[in-house]
């Protein structure tokens, strides 16, 4: 099996069993995978637990783009990044978890920046409902000691 593959290709297997063939240079953008490759403790197939195929595909897409576009203009990469991270909350959550778990620094940076932008302009109630999953009635009835002053805006 391994002989049929090119030398510098790796197979990543997602949690639901799907396999992705990626160049090694792309795969090692994840520090966790890089460590595994360097320690030679991995065969050509590297399992990526906790990350399903969808998310893994996204991560690989991101890494590929970053690997290819090293020579390209930085602004291109930025637009790609901002479009790439512009996703729904659940996808973002999964991506962050994956990026954190696999230790992909560039992706984590871009994602954190995006989340920061999302949260920045929002009011407290908005943040509670949208990002913490509170229901409106919970906020109204819960015993937050902050309620007295958080209604007023800070800026």
């Amino acid at each position, binding site marked *: 099996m391994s002989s049929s593959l090119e030398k510098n290709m790796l197979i990543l297997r997602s949690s639901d069993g799907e396999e992705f063939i990626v160049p090694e240079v792309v795969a090692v953008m994840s520090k966790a995978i890089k460590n595994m490759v360097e320690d030679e403790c991995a065969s050509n197939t590297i399992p990526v637990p906790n990350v399903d195929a969808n998310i893994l595909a996204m991560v690989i897409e991101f890494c590929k783009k970053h690997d290819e576009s090293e020579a390209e203009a930085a602004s291109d990469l930025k637009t790609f990044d901002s479009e790439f991270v512009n996703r729904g909350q659940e996808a973002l959550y999964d991506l962050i978890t994956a990026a*954190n778990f696999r230790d992909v620094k560039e992706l984590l940076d871009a994602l*954190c920046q995006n989340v920061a932008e999302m*949260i920045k302009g929002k*009011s407290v109630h908005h943040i*509670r409902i949208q990002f913490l999953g509170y229901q409106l009635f919970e906020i109204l009835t819960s015993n937050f000691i902050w309620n007295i*002053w*958080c209604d007023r805006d800070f800026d």
Partner: protein
Amino acid sequence: MGDDDKSLAQYNHDHPKKLRNMEPKLEPDQPDQPRYIAHIPEDILSYVISRMPWRSICRLKCVSMYWYSLINSKTIAPSPFRSSLFSTNNKEPDLFAGVFYQNFNSTEPCFFSADKDIKVEFITLGSRLELEVGELIERGLYAVDENMPLIPFNFYIEACCHGLLLCSHPKPCKQCKLRNCQVDRHYVCNPITKKFIWLPKPPEYPHRTVKTGFLVDQESGHYQVMQIPVNFYADPITKEGFVMVDLYSSLSRTWRTECFEFHPRSHENPSPAVFFSRVVFTGPAVQMRGLLCWVATRDVVVCCNVEKKFCFIKQPNFKIFSGLINTPCLGEFNGVLRYLASDSRMVCLWDLQAGEWELVKMVPIDTIAKSLSDKYWMIDDFNNVRPLALQCSNPEMVFLAFPHKWIMSYNFVSEEVNLIERIEMSYLILTPMILIPFVLPKIPLPVF
């Protein structure tokens, strides 16, 4: 986390996790549950938070107990605050610090910043305070110092602690119906976020308060206000006695009255009431590790905790000096109580180390005068340098006053003198000045 990324790695430790229990929803238990951004691991969350402007961060503290504790934990790097606060000022910023000052005659508190690299800046809040805030913005005055926005009231600053100010605002008294009778209502404000909250009336309102104390818990942001009344009750023989102190706690949002006992030892002052004499001005309280300390009359420093009794510390020995001893003042640095005093020749600074006063700085007034050589012509009387305050962000900086002339800051190490403000003669004779050191905390506390 990558090994090279220390800013990320350092978030990992020391979060106050106990507050997590108060969070009804933090982690999704089942995989089918909707996943929310806020459920990401806490080191990532603090990484996200640290990328925001600090005003947004202030707001985020209100989101939940967990976020509040996360932001308050010191592991959130101060860098975002610094960069947004000081980007225009200098490269390696120190804490933003300065002094509020006012005298009892005026309702015009002033602020000037005493940062090392920032030019000593003097801001009179004074007459602008009576204007509406909107009006101020129109006039462009609002931008005098963005870090120190104006507080829209006539007020006296009574105390300052961890960036919160306790102010009093004179209001006409409704109970006694005397003309021109005014009583003080207190409010607590954060000059950075511009939020303030009125305290309720104390139980025996209005009563005559001789000292007001203000204690802020740096971790939780809750504060306590203590009002010591004029009336002491003391046994004339044993000297033991008690005083009914009004305490306000922001946790309960109520005043309560408690009996504080005191046990003066034999070498101390015979009459406890003299500790807090209205005639002798002794300056605002200094907070030192949860203790409130005042310079009292008759060579005693009075310390008081909201839970304990009063205790008394003898002031440093002055006998090596001659001449008139000026009213000393207290300061605090890194949990050490400091004592600044002067006579006609020397300015001296003591630290309280293990219950003993240790003389750490002693500067002849002549030296200060020499540092002032280029401005020397302004000052003709060096005999009576009066200590006013100690800068709490910089252990080397103190504030002094030349009687009838100038307030100035003096740095013990660089021997640099900055003249701050000329004082009118009558002010210093008739009424004392108060200087209240202020340090902007890295994360502004909310006002409960």
